[in-house]
């Protein structure tokens, strides 16, 4: 294999910086030799040689930013190969599409391809208390979450962060970056790999009046701890007749990552939204991530805060105000329209947004709603919208049975039956465990075309 490709540091990495070459052209390398260092906003990694050979050509110079994953970065001439063989074949150059979604939702995704018009459909319209002319700061969802925690921790010393790799490692996904340095090891606490134990420990600390933020490296691992989340945290206030609160936030990335297979790729939105006594928040934009995490930390009700690994690096505009707190339980109308209501949340909003762009361009006046909070669910906003449009399409990554879309369909049928011009229609993850193969994984997830097809069906355009 003469061509060295830009590796991915994580399943969701799309591009990175080639920070340093440790070899030069003409050097002889053997397996295990470090060729280069690459980095993303959350990690650095060394690129090692797999084969023996001579570095024939360095294609990407050091210091280059935005190198796409799988782009050729160097050519190493293997033993016995002649220089002519080293031309990369088209097969080797063809980037492998590891991301489940093409990245082109302009105002939330970094490095959007030029030429895609920045549509205004994601304007924050319904949130209160923003002074006119407020400065908007561009930041990633990751930074927004980080700021939310840091600001709240400055305000209240009873708040602490606990989880695996949250402190010294700076967060498995770098969401807690810098918190250890600012707040110290008393308040930013690395745990052993022991989800059941530290979830329970956090709930106990909350019973005693502290305000823990418990980070799960991903929500997949929180399955080990779900008993403490539901049986101990969610039910405590009720079982104690209103006496004992559990002011705790459980947070971490939820939903499908990319190419990590069935056990590490699933959406728990519907699971937790089922449980009275919990608040369940699943933001899409950076602004919502910040404002809602601050609200979650202040809440005296236990909050399940569902982030998304793929969205961590996406950017958005966040209002620069002293205390940006958003209401839990309020949906956001991302775009007003009159033909059809699309409802989604978190990663589903990416599909929904892209579909909306295309549908609007094709003349369909879409109303797009971002639920943001799944419990309590702002069904009022959805029902009002459907009364106007007569049509509902829901979009989520989770499985169909008992899903968020199923709930919305039931609510709309019950509360806006006479207004419906078409059956409520769900776009969901397929009813299978997440497959590993790239093509199957793509099929298992919802996509933009499915959203468009659903809208076409309910508007009788197909």
């Amino acid at each position: 294999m003469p061509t060295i490709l830009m590796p991915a540091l994580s399943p969701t990495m799309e591009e990175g910086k080639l920070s340093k070459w440790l070899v030069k052209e003409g050097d002889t390398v053997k397996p295990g030799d470090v060729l280069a260092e690459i980095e993303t906003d959350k990690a650095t990694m060394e690129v090692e040689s797999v084969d023996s050979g001579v570095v024939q050509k360095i294609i990407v110079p050091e210091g280059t930013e935005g190198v796409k994953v799988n782009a050729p970065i160097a050519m190493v001439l293997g033993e016995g190969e002649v220089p002519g063989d080293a031309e990369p074949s088209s097969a080797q150059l063809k980037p492998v599409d590891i991301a489940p979604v093409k990245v082109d939702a302009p105002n939330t995704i970094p490095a959007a391809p030029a030429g895609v018009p920045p549509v205004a459909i994601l304007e924050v319209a319904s949130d209160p208390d923003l002074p006119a002319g407020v400065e908007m700061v561009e930041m990633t969802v990751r930074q927004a979450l980080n700021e939310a925690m840091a600001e709240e921790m400055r305000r209240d010393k009873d708040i602490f962060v606990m989880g695996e790799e949250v402190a010294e490692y700076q967060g498995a996904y770098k969401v807690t970056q810098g918190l250890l340095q600012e707040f110290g090891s008393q308040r930013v606490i690395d745990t052993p790999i022991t989800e059941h134990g530290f979830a329970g420990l956090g709930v106990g600390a909350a019973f005693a009046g502290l305000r823990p933020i418990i980070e799960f490296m991903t929500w997949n691992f929180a399955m080990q701890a779900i008993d403490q989340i539901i049986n101990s945290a969610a039910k405590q206030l009720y079982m104690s007749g209103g006496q004992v609160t559990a002011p705790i936030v459980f947070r971490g990335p939820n939903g499908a990552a990319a190419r990590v297979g069935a056990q590490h790729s699933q959406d728990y939105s519907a699971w937790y939204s089922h449980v009275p006594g919990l608040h369940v928040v699943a933001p899409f934009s950076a602004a919502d991530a910040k404002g809602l995490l601050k609200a979650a930390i202040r809440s005296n009700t236990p909050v399940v805060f569902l982030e998304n690994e793929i969205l961590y690096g996406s950017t958005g505009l966040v209002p620069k105000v002293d205390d940006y707190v958003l209401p839990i339980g309020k949906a956001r109308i991302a775009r007003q329209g009159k033909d059809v209501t699309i409802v989604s949340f978190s990663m589903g909003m990416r599909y929904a947004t892209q579909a909306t762009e295309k549908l609007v361009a094709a003349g369909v006046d879409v109303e797009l709603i971002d639920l943001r909070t799944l419990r309590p669910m702002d069904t009022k906003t959805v029902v009002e919208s459907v009364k106007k449009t007569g049509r509902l399409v829901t979009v989520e990554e989770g499985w169909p049975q008992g899903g968020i879309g199923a709930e919305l369909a039931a609510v709309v049928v019950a509360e806006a039956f006479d207004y419906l011009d078409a059956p409520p229609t769900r776009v969901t993850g397929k009813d299978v465990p997440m497959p590993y193969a790239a093509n199957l994984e793509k099929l298992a997830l919802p996509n933009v075309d499915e959203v468009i097809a659903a809208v076409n069906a309910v508007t009788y355009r197909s």
Partner: protein
Amino acid sequence: MARKAVATKTAQSNVPEFTKEQELSAYREMLLIRRFEEKAGQMYGMGLIGGFCHLYIGQEAVVTGVTMASRKGEDAQITGYRDHGHMLVMGLDPKGVMAELTGRQGGLSKGKGGSMHMFSNEHRFYGGNGIVGAQVSLGTGLAFASKYRGDNTVSISYFGDGAANQGQVYESFNMAKLWNLPAVYIVENNRYGMGTSVERASGQPDFSKRGISFGIEGEQVDGMDVRMTYDAAKRAIEHARSGKGPYILEMLTYRYRGHSMSDPAKYRSKDEVSTMRAEHDPIEQVKQRIIEKRYGTEESLKDIETEIRAIVTEAADFATTDPEPPASELWTDVYAPA
């Protein structure tokens, strides 16, 4: 590491002496639990108490001795579902406990918790937890809060020999030692996890040794002798409070009744139960000492008995006459005020 003092054998040599006040206080506390639980059993049989009802009869010396050794109202305590005795010793109102058992509005949880779910912020009693083993992680969190605040309190977590085999117990031990939390773990070994004896469930049936791999000291204690439970708890609590980290006490005890009211307890012989009752009853032991040492007379102990019975009767009356919670209570206390 584990000081092994199988107290039924060595008790005579190093038993701490109680003062008159301590003996009488222990007698009163344990008798209240015994009479309260007997009454609860009756009321369950009459259909006044529903669902699960796990009685503490036989184990009274454990929670009584430990609580005497603790700072009541300052140190946090948490246990599983066999929790009535803990609440009574910690000073929660017997009327409120009994009314919770009957599901009435005057119950400690307004009738919404039931036998297994009662709490008191005021007394620092955190339940009352229905999931076997969950209280160990929760109790470790209470200890974490103590250390975080530096308020010099300790957390006492009770769990049974059955719960001792749950994975999260060891996750908690590890963190408690890792962070040197002021946690005292009390294993109430009553020999049976529901119907399964310790021998049939535990690879290492000496639970005082269960902390060894984490570097947590443990002791086996005669859990039927309130002086022994008190004395061991003093050491354990002092250890935790002084910043030396967690400590395990295995209390060798026995429940006279079945696991719950619906358990006929056919997995053990009648002889086994009657031997324990005849030779090791925690209340009889105190009573005999009181008489022998002339701390009281048959007559004065009868007065205490009468007094206790009155308290229990009052609790039972309240729990049967207090109304059920209003239907509107169905919808309250789901979400905390902001």
